[in-house]
């Protein structure tokens, strides 16, 4: 009983938590290789050797940081990512946390991620990190609405806020086809929640690394790891909400989920570096004036479709 309901879910969630970011790093390496020559220890070893260097490097301290919050922030970000992964249903029975409102719980994870990223930049008490933190909050407060509208869109046909129900409602047709605007909008949310590519407002180059500018060593390792883990969790939710989760012929459900997650990750790894970083002001306008109305359209579409 305990083994079945506690140990086994723990094992697979933690395995996904460790393997996922590693695979994402490998995918990132592949994308980088396709964009230009890279050398080094090879695609499979590169993430490990980078991590090893972060473990060796000493962790930096600033003059008067909010020390506890500063160390907590990466760990909390990781915990949020793990929480997100726990929500992903791998098959009808393989669900670590199958509650009636798991869709909303993911929304809260997004909201809390903003807090944690802000905390990381704020706590260092240095100038560039502070600007990065505030800039990210502008983004974080903007994308959350889009994400919520899009997710409500998938909840309409499911008549439930549980992710398992969302999957069973896609029995006939996946949401990616049924609500064509949903997945593209949601992918933008994924880039924003992990501040990658065009939405890298937190750790951007113009701030010499932004919230990470004064972070080194093991803290940076945890931070980058958590950032990848969050994207993995996001890909799990995207898979569930739009790509039919475990649904698929021939193969067992969990394998389907894993494949679909990898596909989403690959897409995001490729999309991320493809675009220039957007300026914060333009980002907020884009989110509210363009993408949010598009999310409305998506919701209306989903609503009409669900009633037909």
């Amino acid at each position, binding site marked *: 009983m305990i083994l079945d309901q506690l140990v086994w879910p723990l094992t697979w969630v933690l395995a996904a938590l460790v393997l996922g970011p590693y695979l994402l790093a490998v995918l990132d390496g592949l994308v980088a290789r396709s964009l230009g020559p890279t050398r080094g220890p090879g695609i499979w070893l590169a993430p490990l050797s980078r991590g090893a260097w972060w473990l060796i490097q000493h962790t930096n301290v600033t003059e008067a940081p909010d020390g506890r919050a500063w160390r907590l922030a990466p760990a909390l970000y990781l915990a949020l990512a793990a929480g997100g992964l726990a929500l992903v249903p791998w098959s009808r029975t393989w669900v670590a946390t199958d509650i009636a409102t798991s869709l909303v719980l993911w929304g809260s994870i997004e909201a809390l991620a*903003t807090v944690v990223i802000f905390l990381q930049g704020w706590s260092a008490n240095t100038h560039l990190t502070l600007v990065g933190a505030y800039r990210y*909050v502008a983004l974080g407060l903007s994308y959350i609405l889009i994400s919520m509208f899009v997710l409500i869109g998938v909840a309409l046909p499911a008549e439930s806020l549980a992710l398992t129900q969302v999957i069973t409602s896609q029995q006939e047709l996946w949401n990616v086809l049924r609500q064509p605007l949903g997945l593209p909008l949601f992918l933008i949310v994924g880039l924003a929640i992990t501040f990658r590519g065009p939405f890298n407002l937190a750790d951007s180059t113009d701030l010499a690394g932004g919230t990470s500018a004064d972070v080194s060593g093991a803290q940076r390792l945890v931070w980058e790891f958590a950032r990848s883990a969050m994207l993995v969790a996001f890909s799990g939710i995207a898979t569930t909400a739009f790509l039919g989760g475990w649904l698929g012929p021939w193969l067992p459900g969990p394998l389907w989920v894993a494949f679909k997650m990898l596909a989403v990750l690959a897409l995001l790894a490729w999309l991320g570096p493809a675009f220039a970083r957007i300026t914060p002001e333009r980002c907020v*306008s884009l989110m509210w004036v363009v993408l949010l109305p598009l999310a409305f359209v998506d919701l209306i579409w989903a609503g009409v479709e669900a009633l037909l």
Partner: protein
Amino acid sequence: MNFPLAVDIAFILLALFAVYTGWRVFRTDSMVRASFFLLLSFIAVGAIMLLLSAMYLGVAMFFMMGVEMMVMALFMVMFMMNPAGLNPMMMVHQHRLAIGAGIASFVIVAAMALLARFPHRPLPADLQAVPSLGNELLGESMLIFESVGVVLLATMIGVVVLSSQRGRYGNAGEGSMPPGLEPGGEPAGMPAKDDEEGGGHHHCH
């Protein structure tokens, strides 16, 4: 809940955590810490709501409070002196009175809780909390949604009116400019204007 003992332990831990973090809100010098302590207190209460099978409300607490406390922190830092608490400070008045009132209200409510007899009517086993809430919200006449909609609109307009600068400070003219003919374009039918305060400073569109 199949494990009453685990639920009890979790409840006690969360309750202590909620009270501790709630207390720390007023005992820390850093405004950011204060906001996020309050957030932690809310999260603990939300988790207790989850234990009470209020699946939606507990989770709603997380995302509502996550955003609200984030905004709270922004504004606290904006408008408080010494926002990070680098200097020790104690910005309180009528301290004794406040302590007294706090204790008194605790005692009163606690006494009510201890002395009053409430009927024991647990949740029906087949209750679906979220749909019942949804049906109640929509109700017969959609009264709640109507009023929420109106209040919402009023809040949005009130917030914008109060907080944006409304043309009082030169650049604020932006606020009273008509929108562009195309998104991000120049304002329609407005001559290019110089701002008094900003000198030669430029705004990007």
